[in-house]
């Protein structure tokens, strides 16, 4: 690890602006770090070293020529391999798209390119973002830099591990039920799920359209805020994209204070089923916040107990439809049946049998059931009503406080294979704290709040829809307060890694 890879994105941006170092140097340092550590972490499916260096070189040249540049120009970034990149294969972590090279560009990648951020590569994920361990990738497990025997979380496990492993200063993930916040919690990094519709989904391979949202990730709240500002904004190519003005996140993170902020602890997300160490770390963080002048109140969101149920009907229903297109006819894998007639129908079935992993199949079958005639009202229809109840609960809760808080996940990072032992529902329970935000469309952020048994614990903050700035008004000063009290969580790891 070099001094350059240890720097935050904002430090790198400042150094680039002052001419202390070049983007080529910064990019080269990260590529070397990736090269040296990929065998351990496997954060990336594809490393785009040549393209990254070419971008870095171009940005350096522009800077020398005195051109106006984006504040993050020249700072490298890693993209979850669910983000479509024209000319660079985009796999969604699936065998189905192992060799798919998109002929078009996503809005997210366009924004990153326009701002001049060198893209280091495409990070690993659970297949089509379905999973919370990154064990469901067709491209091998990503290992948690904190302990290689543990998962990095998921589905944006590669994105989080790249940050925690100092392979990239910034990552773009996606969050459908916690896929940015939970891996951030497991790796001691910061992950943000913005309000639904604030970052364009055009060119983001869909999992569940009404829940999916792109999320900025970094090693600090301020880095995530800067990336959030870069990615957010209206996109006419996405019908669900919000027309809102966005921004002010970085400023909010840097200038706000905890004094006078009202933090609502969600009663339903603070007790039973949480690992002791997680509860301890969460409570300690609350005490630190209170000591800094924040007011802590308890709020009741009773319908949250049904959120998980609703999620596991809505999500697979949308998945079953969104993933129908992977049929071996137009792109991606095509497999002929081993026996029997070769027809469009049998080839579709053989292709989907061979191309999808077990978790994806399980969700497709579940969703097909939930949408089928005779069950729609009882399942999908009822689940959409729960969504309304969750929104109503949140609205009531936000009337009593500025933000809601909870542990991000009930546990710290699990060991590999732990989920195989559990029944599927027990596993899904790990998403209980993150899912409500996706159902309601509200923004959420996870930041590190200490360690439990040597592994990071995540602290989740939720804000009302379209009030993403509130996340930063609390997360910024909270991060600063926690660090001044207990040091930066990632420093513990950094020291270990330098040894």
């Amino acid at each position, binding site marked *: 690890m070099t001094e350059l890879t240890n720097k935050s994105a904002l430090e790198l941006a400042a150094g680039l602006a002052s001419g202390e170092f070049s983007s080529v140097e910064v990019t080269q340092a990260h590529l070397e770090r990736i090269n040296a550590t990929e065998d351990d972490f496997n954060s990336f499916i594809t490393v785009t070293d040549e393209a990254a260096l070419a971008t870095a070189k171009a940005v350096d040249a522009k800077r020398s020529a005195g051109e106006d540049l984006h504040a993050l120009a020249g700072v490298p970034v890693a993209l979850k391999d669910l983000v*479509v990149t024209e000319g660079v294969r985009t796999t969604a972590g699936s065998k189905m798209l192992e060799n798919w090279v998109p*002929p078009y560009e*996503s809005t997210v990648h366009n924004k990153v390119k326009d701002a001049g951020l060198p893209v280091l590569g495409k990070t690993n994920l659970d297949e089509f973002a379905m999973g919370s361990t990154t064990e469901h990738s067709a491209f091998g497990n990503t290992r948690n830099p904190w302990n290689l025997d543990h998962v990095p979380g998921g589905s944006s496990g590669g994105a989080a591990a790249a940050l925690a492993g100092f392979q990239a200063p910034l990552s773009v993930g996606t969050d459908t039920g916690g896929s940015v916040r939970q891996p951030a919690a497991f790796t001691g990094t910061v992950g943000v799920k913005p309000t639904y519709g604030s970052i364009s989904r055009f060119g983001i391979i*869909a999992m569940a359209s009404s829940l999916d949202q792109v999320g900025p990730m970094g090693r600090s709240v301020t880095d995530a805020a800067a990336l959030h500002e870069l990615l957010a904004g209206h996109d006419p190519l996405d*019908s669900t994209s919000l027309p809102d003005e966005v921004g002010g996140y970085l400023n909010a993170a840097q200038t706000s204070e905890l004094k006078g902020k009202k933090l609502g602890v969600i009663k339903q997300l603070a007790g039973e089923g949480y690992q002791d160490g997680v509860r301890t770390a969460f409570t300690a963080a609350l005490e630190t916040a209170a000591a800094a002048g924040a007011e802590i109140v308890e709020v009741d969101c009773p319908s949250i107990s049904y959120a998980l149920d609703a999620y596991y009907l809505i999500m697979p229903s949308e998945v079953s439809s969104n993933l*129908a297109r992977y049929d071996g006819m*137009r792109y991606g894998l095509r497999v002929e049946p081993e026996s029997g007639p070769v027809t469009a129908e049998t080839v579709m079935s053989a292709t989907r049998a061979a191309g999808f992993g077990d978790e994806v199949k399980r969700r497709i079958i579940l969703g097909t059931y939930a949408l089928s005639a005779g069950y729609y009202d009882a399942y999908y229809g009822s689940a959409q009503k729960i969504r309304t109840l969750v929104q109503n609960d949140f609205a009531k809760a936000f009337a009593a406080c500025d933000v809601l808080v909870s542990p991000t996940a009930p546990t710290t990072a699990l060991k590999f294979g732990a989920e195989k032992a559990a029944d599927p529902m027990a596993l899904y329970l790990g998403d209980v704290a993150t899912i409500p935000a996706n159902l309601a469309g509200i923004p959420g952020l996870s930041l590190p709040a200490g360690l439990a048994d040597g592994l990071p614990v995540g602290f989740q903050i939720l804000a009302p829809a379209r009030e993403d700035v509130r996340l930063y008004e609390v997360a910024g000063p909270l991060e600063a307060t926690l660090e001044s009290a207990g040091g930066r969580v990632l420093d513990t790891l950094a020291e270990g890694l330098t040894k």
Partner: protein
Amino acid sequence: MKYEDAIKRYDPVIGIEVHVELGTATKMFDAAPNTFGGGPNTNVTPTSLGLPGSLPVVNEKGVEYAIKIGLALGCEIAETCRFARKNYFYPDVPKDFQTSQSDEPIASEGQVEVELEDGTIVTVPVERAHMEEDAGKNTHVGGATGRIQGADHSLVDYNRAGVPLVEIVTHPITGTGDRAAEVAASYVRTLRDIFRALDVSEARMEQGNVRADVNVSLRESPDAPLGTRTETKNVNSFRSIERAVRFEIARQATLLEAGEKVVQETRHFHEETGETSSGRPKSDADDYRYFPEPDLVPLQPARAWVEELRASLPELPAQKRRRLLGEWKFSDLEMRDIVNAGLLEAIEDTVTSGAKPAQARKWWTGEVARLANQEDKHPTEIVTPVQVAGLIDLIDQGKLNDKLAKDVLTGVVAGEGEPAEVMKARDLEIVEDTGALEVAVEEAIAANPDVVEKIKGGKMQAIGALMGPIMKATKGQADAGKAKDLILAKING
């Protein structure tokens, strides 16, 4: 059982689903051009191909056209409507779901007045009109005739995938009795005329712009519950619609008479034989798992917009027929002949250009139609309303008589110029020089003293006997009226 017998024995109920491709510049959910032709797979975007990560955005013009159609059919335009996904796997459906509308269509509950050949008006109840997208096109390769059965493989072109469609669904149409087949065909023809009048589609049946699925069922009597229906898919000409309905009525009656059951299924119509054949039965596989399209947000057409569109609706064919019938004072039969000959517009334009309705009708349905028929063309293809009006004007001015006018028309059709020019060029103008006419009249009187005596005796019709020589002498250019006046003046003077 023959159709004629079947229709006496059973009460037919029909239902029709019509798909019309809208004539927008772009597709329904993406900005690919909505044009016919072009190289395969060139009118496509990532969205038309259903590429991973692509998203739909609704075409405002498509919505506008759908509202116009809904209004023209007398439907309620929904305060809120939604798109829904109809999930089914098929190679020409890029996303393996069709973006359509399910229980919240843009337009519902209207009716269409359909006029049959003999002027009978039948009101067809419309259940709904909704927006959706077309699929790509398969070409079947190998095997016999490019049909699905026996093909080795298929080639898919997605240029048509995503083209905006409006689907119009009727309620069961009852009470048509032995005119069921005629009603079905006339209904689709009426819709076709409406689409054209609204200018929302080229509405060319032969190009598949308008496609019909026809449901048929039989029951013992109008009081009996509805029987099991079949759906004959993609019947694409008026004649085929009529034949398909007749065939299905006869086929189903034969089954019922034999004590067998009609199977609920889709069927295919065969142009060559006029028969339908079994497609596939309705089954669990038809579980389309509709749910609201999460990538699109609800539409709430502003009432002001809807009213603006309502006000902008052109006069619809049925309304126009009724109005013109009153203005022109034609008989019902005359009016129907005009409509069936496709000459309503031409005659209307001719009248607008100054001709009297009766004259316009006479020329279009008479000499113009005759000349067009010789060339195997439609009358409007050989001459314009302005030209016909010009011709009639020359007659009214007395410069041409009907016979000369026919010659002029031949010249106009031959491309020799406008009527007045042809008249001059061919030297056909009625002689204004009364001197020449007087000479001809005097010669005729002198040569036919016996006829003159008859006229003097009061037999006015005898004048006709003098007209022949007069016309001969003036090479047909004499004005018959003037000649008559001169004859009487000379004889009685």
